[in-house]
C-alpha cells in the first residue's frame, strides 16, 4: 500500500518536536536523579514513539538512530548500562542530531549519516555486564512500566481497562517460569484497521511467539481470536527467554500489524500466592497504542488533555471578528445613549456581556503557557554552563503563566540572550566565586508571573553584578555622553547605556555573548511587543533583568483624551493616574514645566505641542494631566480633556506609516472614526 505521507508531514514534525522537548526535559531530570526510573521510562517511550513515527513516515535515518537509542535505553532500564554522565551526554547528542534531522526534513534537505552516533551507542551496549535476574528485578522494582503490577497485599495487577484473570493454572505456569529464569511479557498487538483476515494475522503472531515460548493467556479468548472476533487489538501474556525488543521485532515484521507493545511483567510470586483468589491483571492499552505505550502507572501520571490543533491563522481571524464586534458594540452603546430607549438599552447591555465573554474566551484560546518557551532553556543553560566551565543551578518558576500566542513566539530570542548574558557575564567561575565567599554553584533564576494586565518575566543571577564604572567609561569612550555629563547620571540612566546599539562591557569576547549584538536588540524586540525592560544590579550580588509584557496585543484598555479637537487613546498600562491641577500650580524649573504632585516633582509635557495640534490659549483655569509611565520614570502629559476609559481594538497602521515615534497604532471608535494610540515610550 503506497500512501502519500506528505499530508501527515506537518503532524509528524509537530509531534516529533514535542517528543524531542519532552526527551530533553526528562533527560535533564534523569541527569539530576539517575535513579529516576519513571523518567527513564518516559524517555524510552518518547524515543520509541519517535522511532515508530519516523519509520512510518519513511525517514529511515531517524528511525535507525532512535532504534539504537531505544536499544541503549532498554539496557539502561534493565540496569545493564549504568546511567552516568557519559551516557547522558551521548543521549543528548542523539537528541541534537534528531533535532537537526527534523530541521532537515522540514527544509527538504538530505538525510544524515548517523553511523558515528550509532557506533558510540553500540560501544555502550557492548560494555554491558551479563544480565542477572537479581539485578534486573532490583531495577524493575523501582518504577519500570509495570513495576507494581502486583500491588502488595491484594495481589491485584493494577492499571485499568483490560482485565487479565489469572487462575491457579496460570499462576503455576508463572511460578514455573520464574523458577526456570524465563521472562513473562505482556504483549499487546494492534492490527491495521483495514486488515482483512484478522484471524490469519493472529495465527502468524501466535506462530512467531510460540516458536520460542508459551502464550498462557489471551484477551479475547483464543477461540475468539481464531475466528477473528476482536476489534483491532488483542493482548496476551507470554513466557519465554527472549528480550522484549526481539519479540517486538518479530511481531512488527508481520504484515498488517500496526503496532505491538511488549512489556516485561515482574513476577513476584510470593505476593501472588498470598492471595489465593485469582488476581486480576488489569492492563491499559488505549487506542493510541503505538504512540502511548501503555504503562502509566499510578503515582505520577502525565495527564493527556483533550486538545485540538488549530491553525493560528484561524485564531487570528476569529480575533479580528471579535474585534469588529467590540467596535460595533461600542457604536451601539453610543446610539443607545442617545436614544434613551429602555428595550434597546437592555439588549445592548446583554450584548455587551456576551461580547465581553466571547472576547475573554477568544483571548484565552490564544493564550499559551510560557512553558513552551521556557522548556528549551534548562538544556541550553546546562550546555552553556558546561561549555563555559561554570557551575550553575537553573531555576524556573511560573512556567504555566499564560501569554498571547504572538508574544510567546517572539519572546524566546530575547530570553535566550538574557540567559546567555547571565551565564557568560553574570555568573563567575567557580574559583572566583569561592574566593569571594559565594557558593561555587551559581544561581540563575527565570520567573514569570501575572500582574494585572501584564506579565513580568525576570532573569536573575547571583553573579558579579554590573560594573557601573566600566559602563560609564565605555559610554564616554563611545562618545554617547561627555565625561562631565556622565558624572551627573544616576544608576538607572547609566544602566540604560547597556541597551544602546553596539554597547558591550565584556572585556573578552566569548563565543557566547559579548559580540556587540545584544541588549539593544532585546530591548527593541520587547518594545515592539509593547513591553518594557529594566535592569537592576548590585555589585557582587547579581543582576536582574525585568521584562514587562502586555497580556495580549489585540484588545487593550485605553484612556481616551482630547487634544486640540482630536481624540487619542493612551494604553492604560502606561497610565498611572489622571489629575486636575490649576494653572497656579504650574512651576518652571529650568524652562521645564513641572507640577508638584503629592510631594513629588512631576515634569509636564504639552500633548498639543508634541502632536502638533493648533496651539490655543486655555480659557479655563484647570489643566488636565495624565500621569504616565515612561520606563521607570513618571511624566505628566497635559491634555485638553479626559473622555474616559474604554476597551479598544488595536489596528496596525500598516507598512506605509510604520515607525512614527509616539504612535503605536490606531483604533476605531464607536462613531466609526479612527483614533491614534499613543506610545508614551517614544512620544517624548
Amino acid at each position, binding site marked *: 500500500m503506497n500512501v502519500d505521507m506528505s499530508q501527515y508531514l506537518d503532524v509528524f514534525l509537530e509531534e516529533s518536536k514535542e517528543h524531542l522537548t519532552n526527551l530533553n526535559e526528562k533527560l535533564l531530570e534523569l541527569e539530576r536523579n539517575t535513579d529516576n526510573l519513571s523518567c527513564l521510562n518516559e524517555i524510552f517511550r518518547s524515543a520509541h514513539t519517535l522511532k515508530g513515527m519516523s519509520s512510518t513516515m519513511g525517514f529511515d535515518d531517524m528511525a535507525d538512530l532512535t532504534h539504537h537509542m531505544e536499544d541503549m535505553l532498554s539496557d539502561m532500564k534493565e540496569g545493564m548500562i549504568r546511567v552516568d554522565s557519559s551516557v547522558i551526554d551521548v543521549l543528548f547528542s542523539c537528541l541534537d542530531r534528531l533535532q537537526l534531522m527534523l530541521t532537515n526534513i522540514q527544509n527538504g534537505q538530505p538525510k544524515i549519516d548517523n553511523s558515528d552516533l550509532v557506533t558510540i551507542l553500540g560501544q555502550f551496549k557492548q560494555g554491558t555486564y551479563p544480565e542477572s535476574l537479581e539485578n534486573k528485578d532490583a531495577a524493575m522494582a523501582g518504577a519500570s512500566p509495570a513495576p507494581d503490577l502486583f500491588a502488595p497485599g491484594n495481589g491485584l495487577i493494577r492499571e485499568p481497562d483490560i482485565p487479565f484473570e489469572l487462575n491457579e493454572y496460570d499462576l503455576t505456569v508463572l511460578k514455573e517460569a520464574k523458577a526456570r529464569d524465563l521472562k513473562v511479557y505482556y504483549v499487546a498487538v494492534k492490527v491495521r484497521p483495514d486488515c482483512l483476515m484478522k484471524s490469519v494475522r493472529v495465527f502468524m503472531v501466535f506462530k512467531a511467539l510460540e516458536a520460542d515460548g508459551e502464550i498462557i493467556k489471551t484477551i479475547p479468548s483464543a477461540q475468539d481470536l481464531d475466528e477473528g472476533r476482536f476489534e483491532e487489538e488483542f493482548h496476551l501474556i507470554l513466557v519465554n527467554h527472549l528480550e522484549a525488543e526481539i519479540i517486538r521485532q518479530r511481531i512488527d515484521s508481520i504484515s498488517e500489524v500496526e503496532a505491538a507493545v511488549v512489556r516485561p511483567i515482574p513476577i513476584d510470586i510470593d505476593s501472588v500466592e498470598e492471595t489465593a483468589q485469582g488476581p486480576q491483571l488489569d492492563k491499559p492499552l488505549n487506542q493510541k497504542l503505538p504512540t502511548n505505550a501503555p504503562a502509566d502507572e499510578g503515582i505520577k501520571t502525565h495527564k493527556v488533555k483533550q486538545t485540538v490543533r488549530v491553525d493560528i491563522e484561524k485564531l487570528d481571524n476569529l480575533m479580528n471578528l471579535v474585534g469588529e464586534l467590540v467596535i460595533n458594540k461600542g457604536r451601539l452603546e453610543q446610539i443607545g445613549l442617545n436614544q434613551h430607549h429602555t428595550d434597546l438599552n437592555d439588549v445592548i447591555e446583554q450584548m455587551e456581556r456576551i461580547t465581553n465573554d466571547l472576547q475573554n474566551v477568544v483571548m484565552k484560546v490564544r493564550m499559551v503557557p510560557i512553558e513552551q518557551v521556557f522548556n528549551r532553556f534548562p538544556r541550553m543553560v546546562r550546555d552553556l554552563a558546561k561549555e563555559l566551565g561554570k557551575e550553575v543551578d537553573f531555576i524556573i518558576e511560573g512556567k504555566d503563566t499564560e501569554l498571547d500566542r504572538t508574544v510567546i513566539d517572539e519572546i524566546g530570542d530575547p530570553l535566550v540572550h538574557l540567559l546567555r548574558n547571565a551565564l557568560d557575564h553574570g555568573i563567575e567561575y567557580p574559583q572566583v566565586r569561592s574566593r569571594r565567599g559565594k557558593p561555587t554553584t551559581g544561581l540563575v533564576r527565570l520567573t514569570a508571573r501575572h500582574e494585572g494586565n501584564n506579565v513580568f518575566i525576570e532573569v536573575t543571577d547571583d553573579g558579579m553584578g554590573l560594573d557601573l564604572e566600566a559602563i560609564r567609561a565605555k559610554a564616554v569612550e563611545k562618545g554617547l555622553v561627555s565625561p562631565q555629563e556622565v558624572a551627573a547620571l544616576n544608576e538607572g540612566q547609566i544602566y540604560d547605556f547597556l541597551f544602546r546599539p553596539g554597547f558591550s562591557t565584556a572585556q573578552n569576547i566569548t563565543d557566547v555573548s559579548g559580540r556587540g549584538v545584544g541588549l539593544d536588540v532585546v530591548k527593541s524586540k520587547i518594545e515592539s511587543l509593547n513591553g518594557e525592560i529594566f535592569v537592576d544590579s548590585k555589585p557582587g550580588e547579581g543582576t536582574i533583568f525585568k521584562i514587562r509584557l502586555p497580556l495580549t496585543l489585540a484588545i487593550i484598555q485605553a484612556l481616551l483624551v482630547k487634544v486640540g479637537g482630536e481624540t487619542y487613546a493612551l494604553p492604560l498600562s502606561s497610565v498611572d493616574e489622571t489629575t486636575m491641577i490649576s494653572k497656579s500650580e504650574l512651576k518652571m524649573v529650568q524652562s521645564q514645566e513641572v507640577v508638584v504632585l503629592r510631594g513629588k516633582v512631576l515634569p509636564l509635557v504639552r500633548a498639543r505641542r508634541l502632536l*502638533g495640534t493648533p496651539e490655543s490659549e486655555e480659557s479655563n483655569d484647570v489643566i488636565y494631566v495624565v500621569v504616565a509611565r515612561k520606563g521607570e520614570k513618571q511624566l505628566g502629559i497635559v491634555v485638553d480633556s479626559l473622555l474616559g476609559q474604554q476597551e479598544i481594538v488595536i489596528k496596525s497602521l500598516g*507598512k*506605509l506609516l510604520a515607525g512614527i515615534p509616539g504612535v503605536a497604532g490606531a483604533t*476605531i471608535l464607536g462613531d*466609526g*472614526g*479612527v483614533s491614534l494610540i499613543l506610545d508614551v515610550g517614544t512620544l517624548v
Partner: protein
Amino acid sequence: MGGVTLGQEIQVVAFKIGSGEYGVDILEVQEIIKVLSITRVPRADRFIEGVINLRGNVIPVFNLHKRFGVSSELDGEARIVVFQFEETKAGIIVDGVSEVLRIEGDAIEEADKVYHGLEADFIQGVGKIEGRLLILLNMRKLLGIN
C-alpha cells in the same frame, strides 16, 4: 510588475488633481469612495493626509496636491481612490474621478521623453486621448511601495 505597461491597450481610471488630469491602471484600483472623516497622523510625512476607517481597516490617505504643489479645495466632487498592492492598501485624495478610459499603447508617450528629472520617476507616461493629455502615474513609486 505594477504600473502601467506600455505598448498595449490599457484601461485607466482618470481623475483630477488640481487642474491636471491623471490616470492609473484600473487593475491597481480597489475602489473609489467618498471622502470620509480623515484622522490626522502627527509626525507623519507631510504628504500623508491621515488615516481613514475603511470597513474596519485603517488605511493611510496621501495628499498628492501637496506632492504636486497644487492647491486643494476639496468639494463635493472629491473622492478617495483606494489602491491595493499585495498586503498594502493606501488611498489618495483626488478632486474628482472623471471616467474609465481605454488607451492604445501607441497613444502613450514614455515619460522620459516628456519629463526630466526626479518627477519623471513616478510618471509612467503620458496618454493622449481625443486631444486630452493624461499623466499616467506609477502608484507604487509614488506611494513608496516596493
